[in-house]
């Protein structure tokens, strides 16, 4: 797709459509980087009642600028409550009281399983990634999960090298067998469009594309044989309001895919 003609970048429409996936008056456990940008955009636009929760223990935080880390001072200073790290995981995340978990990914597979640990083998990795952080329990315990990732054959693979955070596992019934309480990933939002799990196979299929993006392009930039929903939608471009709000933030695009 061409950033020049469209008037917005691929990262911008990705962030905007991720923001649109968040409903008002729900609670969202936010990973840093792309998720943080989208969650704050949602709060600044259609979801002023969105409750943002970060693993640093800040609950109902309302940053006026994008935090660079999950523990920036602005998160504490604008929070409804600040709790300890054990408390945020044990009292708030683990019981499943948070509606949406919002994660990034270095690598994820057709079942939405996420790898942020290693590329290659664990003992002698080709690339050592940061690791788990809060993601495994966010993916396990939030009522649902949204993943935001730039689409490429490197990122969207048939099988992840390491399962850091469980998505739909190995398919139908997998999460229940593992005793995972939340529904797991329900949307993968990329810079080309949106993928959702097929209700029968739990495999992620393309359900929507941004303007000027072709199905072929999406397939080329996917490591598995990507299927598309028959009623594949063309997703609306960002509105001027959304772009203005987004551009008033620190640019999210500065941040790498392995940020959290």
């Amino acid at each position, binding site marked *: 797709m061409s950033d020049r003609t469209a008037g917005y970048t691929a990262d911008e429409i990705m962030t905007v459509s991720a923001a649109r996936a968040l409903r008002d008056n729900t609670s969202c456990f936010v990973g*840093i*980087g792309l998720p943080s940008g989208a969650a704050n955009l949602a709060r600044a636009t259609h979801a002023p009642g969105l409750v943002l929760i970060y*693993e*640093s*223990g*800040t609950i109902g935080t309302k940053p006026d600028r994008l935090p*660079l*880390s*999950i*523990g*920036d*001072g602005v*998160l*504490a*200073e604008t929070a409804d409550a*600040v709790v*300890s*790290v*054990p408390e945020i*995981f*044990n009292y708030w*995340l*683990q019981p499943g009281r948070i509606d949406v978990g919002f994660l990034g990914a270095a690598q994820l597979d057709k079942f939405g399983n996420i790898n942020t*640990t290693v590329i290659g083998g*664990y003992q002698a*990795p*080709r*690339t*050592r*990634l*940061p*690791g*788990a*952080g*809060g*993601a*495994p*329990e966010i993916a*396990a*315990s939030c009522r649902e999960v949204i993943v935001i990732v730039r689409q490429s054959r490197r990122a969207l693979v048939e099988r992840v090298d*390491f*399962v*850091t*955070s*469980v998505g739909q*596992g190995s398919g139908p019934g*997998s*999460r229940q067998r*593992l*005793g*995972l*309480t939340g529904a797991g990933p329900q949307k993968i939002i990329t810079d080309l469009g949106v993928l959702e799990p097929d209700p029968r196979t739990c495999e992620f299929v393309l359900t929507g594309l941004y303007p000027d993006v072709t199905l072929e392009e999406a397939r080329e930039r996917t490591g598995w044989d990507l299927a598309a929903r028959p009623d594949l939608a063309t997703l609306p471009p960002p509105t001027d309001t959304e772009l203005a709000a987004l551009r008033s933030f620190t640019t999210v695009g500065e*941040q*790498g895919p*392995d*940020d*959290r």
Partner: protein
Amino acid sequence: MAEIVSLAEAIGQAVRDGDAVAMEGFTHLIPFAAGHEVIRQRKRDLTLIRMTPDLIYDQLIGAGCARKLVFSWGGNPGVGSLHRFRDAVERSWPGPLELEEHSHAGMANRYVAGASGLPFAVLRGYSGTGLMDPGHQHPSIKPVTCPFTGEVLTAVSALNPDVAIIHAQRADARGNVQLWGITGIQKEAVLAARRSVVTVEEIVPGLDPRPDAVVLPAWTVSYVAEAPGGSRPSYALGYYDRDNDAYQAWDPIGRDRDRFRQWLDREIFGAARV
């Protein structure tokens, strides 16, 4: 009972070669000055414990202080990789680095168990992940069955470091410590450890109560040392902001062994002792 001493004295007394050392501070109040003093005193064979290794452990690992790393997220927040950490894992430079890897929830609960005098903690976690993969043998994660419901949950072993090192905003003249804002896992780390060092922005006559504050009474702390700016380039709420540029600037230094060596000589071994 807390002794108020210099930073050099505190690290010299508290940290011994081969110790398991936890330097905590979740993005906020990271004890950089104390970490640099550990490098300066050339401590060796340390097991470094920390949820988010951050620049502080990238530096200790690169300087050759670490034998093992116990952690849950090893990146440069907002920037990318920790290249000294990667160089140690991917190419064993300056030496091999053993990893004991967890999730944040697992690490937090391991500290809670340690602070509570229990050998383990229970959580819903790891199920289905590579960290539970038998191939990736993990002596600090095991299943545990609820004696009431029969449900299988996950147990993690307690963390009881030899030394916990944290940075706080203030202490009073008796050595009572006060920190506030994002207080992370510091209380648990200190209460779980055999010995502890707390660096502070300032020592004040008395501690007036503050919102979102944690107080560690003097009798729970081994050493308190005044170290103004002791958590830079991290931040100390109420004293200074996070130096995001410094986190960006670390990337090219950490990427290159020579530039890192030069940084060590200039910033650590060249710098006057605190």
